[in-house]
């Protein structure tokens, strides 16, 4: 039914069915047996399309509950209609940015290309401003005009000693901070990992928790814990330094630690070898909801969650550490 007369007939009948036909079109349809037959045919289609099976009550309630939970996590000021702002929180944004850019550990490889929140980018950009100002000050003190760019880079390296652990140069870091990674949401799927890439997915400390805004980002974050064959990376290749592990552990709250035993015990029966090895990873985070492997803590829509992988169903999970309430889940890419 692609020829023009039938297309016209279909359009006419469809508009008639929807009550969107002009008086002239109505008259044409009602005078044409074929057009009326087409209207009836499309009426059946409309009935079929509209007949959507309702969601199961349990699913509906779970989804509504998660939405209300997101509401509860909104700052009071935002719930009242006042836009969220750093200033309202009483924090100097430049200071916050500088602290953030210097204390948050860098992620490498795929994680480096992952979409990050605009807030983090702005914070990092503000940190750069501070660093550049420092560079200018240094230059004015030394009077050295020979190589401006290298002086600035050297200054940044001095100011942020924790960052270039993976052998990455600071100019590259600058480029990263000024590029909006959300423009390349799938760039992280490219398999360009080195061994070092695998390692650094120990979660950052709480101040620098990975911020995830949607299931896509959740899937990408979780997939970083998998190797190229989709196998879970065992912790013997995981956190490179004790300090990173300590950071990851500190991200879990005390209440998460207190609740960790029960859900972890539940999951032991169904856990696979990856799970057993996982015991050496951040142990404070509970395994719930069929999760076999914990990727680490993160912020999902502003809510602190545990990101984990359900190996059997090949899904990434985000749930609350304190009560295991599921916040989001998504198929792994």
């Amino acid at each position: 039914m692609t020829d023009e007369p039938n297309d016209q007939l279909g359009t006419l009948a469809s508009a008639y069915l929807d009550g969107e036909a002009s008086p002239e079109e109505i008259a044409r349809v009602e005078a044409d047996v074929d057009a009326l037959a087409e209207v009836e045919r499309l009426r059946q289609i409309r009935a079929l399309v509209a007949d959507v099976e309702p969601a199961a009550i349990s699913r509906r309630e779970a989804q509504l509950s998660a939405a209300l939970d997101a509401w509860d996590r909104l700052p009071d000021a935002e719930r009242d209609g006042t836009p969220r702002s750093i200033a309202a929180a009483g924090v100097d944004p430049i200071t916050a940015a500088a602290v953030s850019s210097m204390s948050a550990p860098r992620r490498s490889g795929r994680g480096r290309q992952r979409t990050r929140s605009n807030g983090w980018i702005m914070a990092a950009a503000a940190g750069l401003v501070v660093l550049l100002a420092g560079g200018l000050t240094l230059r004015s003190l030394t009077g050295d005009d020979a190589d401006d760019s290298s002086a600035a880079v050297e200054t940044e390296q001095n100011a942020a000693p924790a960052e270039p652990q993976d052998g990455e140069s600071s100019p590259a870091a600058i480029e990263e901070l000024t590029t909006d990674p959300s423009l390349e949401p799938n760039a992280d799927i490219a398999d360009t990992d080195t061994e070092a890439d695998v390692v650094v997915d120990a979660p950052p400390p709480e101040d620098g928790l990975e911020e995830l805004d949607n299931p896509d980002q959740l899937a990408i974050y979780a997939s970083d814990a998998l190797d190229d064959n989709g196998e879970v990376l065992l912790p013997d290749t995981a956190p490179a330094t004790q300090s990173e592990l300590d950071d990851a552990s500190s991200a879990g709250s005390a209440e998460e630690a207190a609740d960790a035993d029960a859900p972890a015990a539940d999951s032991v029966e169904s856990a696979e070898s990856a799970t057993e090895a996982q015991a050496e990873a951040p142990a404070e985070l509970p395994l719930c909801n069929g999760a076999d492997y914990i990727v680490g803590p993160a912020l999902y829509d502003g809510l602190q969650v545990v990101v984990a992988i359900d190996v059997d169903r090949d899904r990434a999970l985000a749930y609350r550490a304190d009560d295991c309430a599921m916040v989001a889940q998504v198929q792994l890419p």
Partner: protein
Amino acid sequence: MPAKIDDAALVDAAQRGDRAALDQLLRLHYDRIHAVCRRIAGATRDADDACQEALIKITRGLPRFDGNSAFGTWAYRIATNAALDELRKRRRRPLLALVDDDDRDDEPTDPVAARRVEAVADRLAIDEAMDALSEEFRVAVTMRDVLDLDYAEIAELLDVPLGTVKSRIARGRTMLAGRLRLDDLPPIPPDGNREPDSVRPIDPT
């Protein structure tokens, strides 16, 4: 369709921090939000993910909802976008092949069971047929037939001319009819409707 006056009052209360109002608002619109996700993202878990994502985005965006459009229109737009996101993500993933058992000859003998089977078959058939539609047709047909939006509202939501909406809906329905073999059925009796339970999916081979 939920009354807009109720929506306005509930939105107002929710924006002042009334959690119960938000709960009621979401419940009022849940079925349509779910239906949109189901029709656009398909009969998969993606639809559930899209629905969840839409609800959270609606909740988080509510403080900034300015009321310039109806709450429903705004919420359905979010749901449509969430469903399209899931649909696009799914298309980037490899899919398992579907087994087509459409050629089975065994017919149920119990008429009630037969009717149920036919109802399920109809739903599966329309799922398959919708899945075969391109995004633009799928969204237009869903907005019209599931959300019951008029052409002007759809044109505004999709930011396309009215004529484009009219054409997309007509062509989408015509493609669905062709895919569901409505073309092969006998002519419509002059006095009544043909029951949709005779709908069969097209054999892709």
